[in-house]
């Protein structure tokens, strides 16, 4: 029973962080209907920012979040004005290939600067500490804190989008850019802001994740794929949808643990021989495939 509870708990915790990863992708798509293939690379930038800021200044890794947010925000703005602004004038294929190129560019820049080695944080008040929650559930302090801060960041972005004039202007741009322009909303700035908020939220997620996972220049693709799955499941453009889908995807990554529970409960030998752990991300992509086929607008997506 303890493996079931600990797997569910771990799934929910990591789901909260993954939801924050997907949030930026969701906002950018919601406002501009452009798919950012470089999203995972933005996360990588956030991880490196958190890592090097903590290492260079000796500060507590969790305190690097504002630095990562600023770096991500600026990166988003620079990408928009320097690249995306021109890209959106072209056809859809050009946009897809363009952000794919941005992905390769950021990855190779990181490779040039940081090298290919995995780097990880080894200091901080939470690193290497865990809480025994009872019933066999042991939660690493870094993951628990990252999940909590992800929820805080998520709520902050939700409030920004729903309770401020800027958020309403972003929503208006997302719903009808031309109409918004007629109403005096500077849609170009709104687009840039969407990239800024998208970049900032994913780099915050990166600075949280680097507390428990190592970083290398090649890790972006996995997170881009996971973020796509979350956005597709939650619905393109839906902030609550991204949060809910993040939790679902987090639980999906813990299917091997749930499988183990049934294996040991029913004592089926054949279940023990199924290589569930080596297939754990397959279930995420399968869920992505199913949702795209069965309900393309996702669970909470806007109707066109």
């Amino acid at each position, binding site marked *: 029973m303890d493996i079931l509870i600990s797997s569910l708990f*771990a799934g929910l915790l990591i789901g909260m962080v993954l939801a924050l990863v997907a949030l930026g992708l969701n906002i950018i798509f919601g406002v501009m209907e452009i798919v950012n293939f470089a999203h995972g690379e933005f996360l990588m930038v956030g991880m490196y920012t958190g890592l090097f800021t903590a290492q260079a200044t000796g500060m507590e890794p969790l305190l690097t979040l504002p630095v990562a947010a600023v770096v991500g925000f600026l990166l988003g703005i620079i990408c928009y004005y320097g690249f995306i602004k021109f890209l959106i004038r072209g056809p859809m294929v050009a946009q897809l290939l363009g952000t794919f190129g941005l992905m390769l560019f950021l990855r190779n820049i990181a490779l040039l600067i940081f*090298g290919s080695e*995995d780097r*990880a944080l080894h200091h901080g008040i939470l690193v290497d500490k865990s809480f025994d929650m009872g019933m066999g559930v042991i939660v690493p302090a870094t993951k628990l804190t990252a999940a909590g801060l992800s929820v805080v960041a998520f709520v902050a972005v939700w409030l920004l989008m729903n309770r401020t004039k800027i958020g309403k202007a972003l929503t208006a741009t997302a719903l009808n850019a031309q109409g918004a322009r007629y109403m005096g909303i500077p849609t170009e700035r709104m687009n840039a802001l969407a990239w800024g908020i998208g970049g900032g939220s994913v780099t915050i997620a990166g600075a949280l994740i680097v507390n428990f*996972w*190592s970083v290398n220049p090649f*890790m972006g693709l996995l997170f881009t794929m996971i973020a796509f799955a979350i956005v597709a499941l939650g619905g393109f453009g839906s902030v609550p949808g991204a949060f809910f889908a993040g939790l679902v995807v987090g639980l999906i990554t*813990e299917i091997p643990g749930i499988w*183990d529970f049934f294996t040991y409960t029913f004592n089926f030998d054949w279940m023990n021989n199924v290589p569930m*752990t080596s297939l754990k991300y397959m279930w995420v992509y399968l869920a992505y495939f199913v949702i795209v086929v069965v309900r393309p607008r996702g669970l909470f997506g806007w109707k066109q």
Partner: protein
Amino acid sequence: MKTAVRFGMVVLGVLAVVGLMVPSAALAAKEIKIGVIYPLTGGAAAAGRELRAGAELAAKIANNVMTDISMDMAKNSGIKNMGGAKIKLIFKDHQGNPTIGADLAKKLILDDKVDGILGCYHSSVTKTVSAVCEQYGVPMINGTSTSPALTKRGLKWFWRTTPHDKWFTKDLFELLKGLTEGKVRGVKAVPKKEIINLASACEKTEWGSHVSDIIKSLAKEYGFKLKKSLLYAAKSPDLSSEVRSLKAVRPDAMLFASYTSDAILMVKTLKAQKAAPKIIWGQDAGFEKPEFRSTLRDSIVGILTRTVFLPKVAQIKKVAGQVNTLYKKNTGNDLGGASARAFTGLQTGVHVLEKAGSTKPADIQKAANALKIPGKELVVPWAGIQFAASGDEIGQNVLGSGLIGQYQKDKDGNLVLEIIYPFDVATADMIFPFSF
């Protein structure tokens, strides 16, 4: 007289023209090009750096007379039987990718016209590269890939110097058996029921999946219960679900086959999840890398790793100590399992060339099959190098052997690997049971 002078002038002229036409390279000692394919970037880049440094040091010793190194290779400048021909290494980076490895091998053979290939560390890459070498009839020496299947394919152009995983894994089970029989230094006989439950996690490429299969079969043979055996992706950013799965069966010993970054992540996750096996054993690779030690520091005290070389070997074997001093001067690190075996791989190539006296593939093939290098020539603690020329493991060195080391702290508080197995060369008491 005039005619004789004219004839002499003509002869001199012809000789001068012919002399100018002969390329200068033919007059100089020939250069022997060896393609070296290692993972110089990607997840195993740290291992790649070690491998490269090991091979480069061997080439340096082969190309120069070094009287302070007690090995035949250091007595001559270049290959003596080929007029002092120098070894030139051409390094290529396979990034841990078998397809890239095969492409690089083709380029080395067709464009660079190499005389032989050394590599590739990852068994999966060695598999594809050796297939290319077989296709083109180019000799390949492998010093560091340990998947048993590599020498079971009947290849004619492939020779492996390192012992393979079946031998290494058997060493582990001999150690477990020795624990129950009280043979381990510093540990009283442990009742078998206290260490009977095992769990293994291996990365899922060619190497790890074969180790996993070997653990399964040897656990059965030695009467241990393998309660959980799983494969995982070495590039996975998170291994917590794997660790929970291992913990769930409450194993007495956890066995791993991991590359560097995943070995570090695995141990960090085990610690974070408060896993409490009595034994943690790693199948070399990541568990022996300098990064593993420098990253995890004191938390790895008590972890076992199989290896083929430990700095302690340098203390008990003169030639190993001499080479280790040079290696440390170049890199700042002691020789490790990867670098010592890369060194030995190239050293074997040099001996083969010396015996063949030419770079013709057929001569090299004949020389390799008849080669015998005595153990005193090697930095690794093997009985020597001699390849099986028949049977079901053609090309496998039959004189190799392994070691099992344990991370311990020395008197000065430094982290060192002590030899625990073979029992007769143990350098310290074993720490048992393990705890974080």
